[in-house]
């Protein structure tokens, strides 16, 4: 259970691959194993809260289950907290306009906004408020700017409090015992390409450790080699004739469905091969099967928890 023994896990992935659900499941699994866990949504769209069938999370962590707490990142709140804790600015209540102004600088000055978010997460880890912080992080296109922000800032900013702050953040972020990045993908071409590119960028531009690669929605193999040879012949006219006589004309749709599943799976396993070639040998790869379910929210999360615990425990 090495993965869950870390203290800070960033979960990323291309949009649509199930990043949020996987982040929710990892947090749930850790909580079930007795780890006091905080799960944090970075983009505040409410998808993470929805995965737990909750209304949107506030900035201040809220308990959602035994050992499990949820929060949504908000850089303005984070700035406020930061100023209060570290700069000891009095009258924090009066900084509203200042925060908005700061927000604007942060938009233009790269890394400032990201560091406020990362800083909050690292702070929770440093203060040991939780055993584990699971972050439903930015999508794979932006994750490197996010987790790489403290490094960028420490290079851009020569003096000042922020530079001092980045030092302890980097200590946490770059310690593989404490922090890890998990990328989620599906066995499809674009998500796999993006994952491979991401692994390169993470290596080039950050020193954050790759804790695992999760492959979501893996289709089950229906047949072994002998079965496959038989299945391939089911489309011959003679076989079609026999099956139509036994099960009606719509039996073609039934066979087509299986063929589609097989074709998708075969293309997918080609992409998985490529992915395995790009993932370091000592990085765990975790597979979650396609669930074939109409369920959403907590039920899906708990099914993924089961799949993950088969792989992890």
């Amino acid at each position, binding site marked *: 259970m090495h993965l869950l023994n870390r203290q800070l896990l960033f979960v990323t992935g291309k949009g649509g691959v199930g990043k949020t659900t996987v982040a929710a499941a990892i947090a749930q699994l850790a909580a079930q194993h007795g780890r006091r866990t905080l799960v944090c949504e970075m983009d505040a769209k409410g998808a993470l809260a929805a995965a737990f069938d909750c209304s949107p999370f506030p900035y201040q962590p809220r308990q959602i289950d035994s050992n499990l707490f949820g929060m949504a990142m908000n850089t303005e709140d984070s700035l406020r907290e930061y100023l209060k804790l570290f700069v000891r600015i009095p009258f924090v209540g009066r900084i509203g306009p200042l925060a908005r*102004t700061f927000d604007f*600088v942060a938009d*233009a000055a790269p890394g400032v906004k990201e560091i406020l978010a990362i800083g909050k997460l690292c702070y929770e880890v440093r203060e040991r408020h939780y055993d584990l912080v699971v972050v439903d992080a930015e999508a794979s296109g932006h994750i490197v700017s996010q987790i790489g922000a403290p490094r960028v800032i420490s290079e851009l*900013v020569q003096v*000042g409090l922020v530079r001092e702050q980045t030092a302890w953040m980097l200590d946490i972020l770059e310690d593989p015992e404490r922090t890890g990045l998990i990328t989620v993908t599906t066995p499809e071409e*674009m998500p796999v390409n993006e994952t491979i590119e991401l692994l390169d960028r993470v290596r080039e531009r950050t020193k954050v450790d790759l804790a695992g690669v999760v492959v979501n929605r893996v289709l089950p193999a229906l047949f072994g080699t002998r079965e496959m040879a038989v299945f391939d012949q089911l489309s011959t006219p003679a076989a079609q004739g*026999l099956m139509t006589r036994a099960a009606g004309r719509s039996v073609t749709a039934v066979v087509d469905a299986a063929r589609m599943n097989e074709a998708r799976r075969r293309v997918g396993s080609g992409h998985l091969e490529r992915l395995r070639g790009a993932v370091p040998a000592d990085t765990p790869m975790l597979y979650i099967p396609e669930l074939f379910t109409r369920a959403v929210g907590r039920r899906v999360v708990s099914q993924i928890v089961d799949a993950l615990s088969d792989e992890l425990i």
Partner: protein
Amino acid sequence: MPGTQTNSGIADLLASKEMIIVCGSGGVGKTTIAASLAAEAAVRIGGRVLVLTVDPARRLANALGLQAFGNSETQIPLDAFAGAGVTPRGELWAAMLDTKAGWDELIARHAPDDVLRDTVLANPLYQNITGRFVQSHDYIAMERLHEIHASGRYDLVIIDTPPSRNALDILDSPGRMMEFFGSRLLRWLTVPYRSRLFTAASKPFYQVADRVLGSRFLQDIAEFFVLFQTMEKGFVERAREVERLLSDPRTAFLVVSTLEAAPAYEAAYLAEALRERRLPLGGMVLNRTMPSALREPAAEKAAAQLRKAAQTGSLAADLSSVLEADPQVVRGVLTEVADRFHDIAMVAAREAERRSELERLAPFTVAAPSLDHDINDLHSLLQLGDHLWS
């Protein structure tokens, strides 16, 4: 708008518009759809058609018969079409969007002189912003579309938009650019910081900022904004033109989505946002859909019958003699095929529900099938295009 669906939706759209902005969630096949529509338009409608893509995928370049393509516009050679067995009526061109080069061109255009241009280009903040500032991709994409359209070189430009943190960023990017220059903050920051002539209003801000960020960084910021402000007029005028482009009657948005949960949600959100902003949603392409035959009750019944015939009837034995295979293996295969149908039909049903939700939001929707091979040449791009067309 139920009842307004037509099969010629895509054809009409491409024939009547000059700019198609293809948008949608990441991973739904936007780039491929944009390229296949452009190829199809060049073949069937004619004229000069350009596909402007943000995806540097070598595979797509290869599919278009190019070794690679860069920021400059490249024509797809006619032999690539001949290889695919068609003679296009018009020309197909392709170009890639390079955000960094796009920004540098903007600065070069708006900078009052060469010295200032070079100072901006060398400013560490500028270099960071252009490479990493997420929303800058969106603005550059729209800017480039405007420039290409205004050049009059093409009859139709199809632009594949960058993957955004938020699908709305692309719509809001020109407005943000104007807001940026008009903001009070920019004025505050451009108060000659280094001469220490603070206004009363900005003083507390600088005190805090100084403690937090360090004065050197603040100086970089201030310098950057001072430089930027000299280009305000050009930038703002241009952003206004770019914004007008979005609502131009010659422009239409085409939302691409698969019928998986997350992309479909994003597509619905985008369609709503376009409506609120009174921007023209031309139509929706639903990519990688499953065949409707899977959802017919007859198919479900056939699966049950197949299972029964395999277990108790003579089907397995009959098939095994025709196929010269072990009857046990045949029985196993038939049972698996029948059992698995329910799962796959479930996915198809889930997709059908999402599809009818999306159909309510667009003037037309058109489905592209789930292909069991990758698209790697012009021939397969045009095959996909044929599906979209008919």
